[in-house]
């Protein structure tokens, strides 16, 4: 019932399979924030394609996942927002600008790779 979290290289991938209760979303945030440190991840991808509904509470939590991960040095992408859900989200006052989104997992992985290369070349 809880959200499976996989690690691929230095990216954590959380795949939400179904609608989540408030408690489950909160737990996902806490787990991801902890895991970013223990796994030394630099990227987090949250796949929400299994979610029928994202309301203001969940939207706020997704943002807080991204902000907490950023504090811990990782970049978060939310992927797989369904078209209907995207339209619903537009109705809310929640400021989702801090949230990076990509169409799907592949695109997010690509963007995270690009970012890593950029950092590597800047670093030298």
């Amino acid at each position: 019932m809880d959200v499976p979290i996989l690690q691929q290289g230095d990216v954590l991938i959380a795949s939400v399979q179904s609608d989540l209760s408030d408690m489950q979303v909160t737990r996902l945030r806490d787990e991801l924030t902890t895991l970013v440190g223990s796994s030394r991840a630099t990227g987090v991808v949250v796949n929400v394609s299994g979610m029928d509904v994202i309301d203001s509470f969940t939207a706020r939590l997704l943002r807080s996942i991204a902000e907490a991960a950023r504090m811990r040095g990782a970049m978060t992408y939310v992927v797989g927002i369904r078209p209907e859900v995207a339209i619903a989200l537009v109705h809310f006052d929640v400021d989702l600008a801090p949230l990076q989104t990509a169409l799907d997992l592949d695109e997010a992985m690509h963007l995270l790779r690009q970012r890593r290369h950029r950092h590597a070349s800047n670093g030298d």
Partner: protein
Amino acid sequence: MATELESPRRVAISSDNDIVHARAQARDMSIALGFSSTDATLVATAISEVARNLVVHAGGGDLVMTAVADGVKTGLTIEASDRGPGIRDVEAALGSRYTGRGGLGLGLPGARRLMDDFSVDSSAESGTVVRMTKWRIIDELERLRQRRSRDGLPQGARDGTR
């Protein structure tokens, strides 16, 4: 005046699992009423907001979903009621005067924008009732179908003319 199409569906809300359940019910009922997938999602999202208020601010309450018809419109009316402490400033809760985190953080401004009709009655004595409706226009073909099922065969089919 809107008339009820079928017996209302009641969902008791007391925990955050009930919120998930209520969303699914709202979606199913919207789809059954012929709402588009997008509108069904908007309704389910609005339900989620008001259901959370029941849990967080009133220690639980009831959701009643009713299919309604009004002339060329068919719709879904949702009533969320609780016996909680009431909302002291409904205007503020609806977010018309405050910006930022959606009024007082009750999720009502979002729900209001997602639905077509929206009203709130609240007092410290009797609790809070949020009533909201999403409408769908019945198209020509559906109207014909409804008339047929109501009146039996259409006149033309019975006497062999068109």
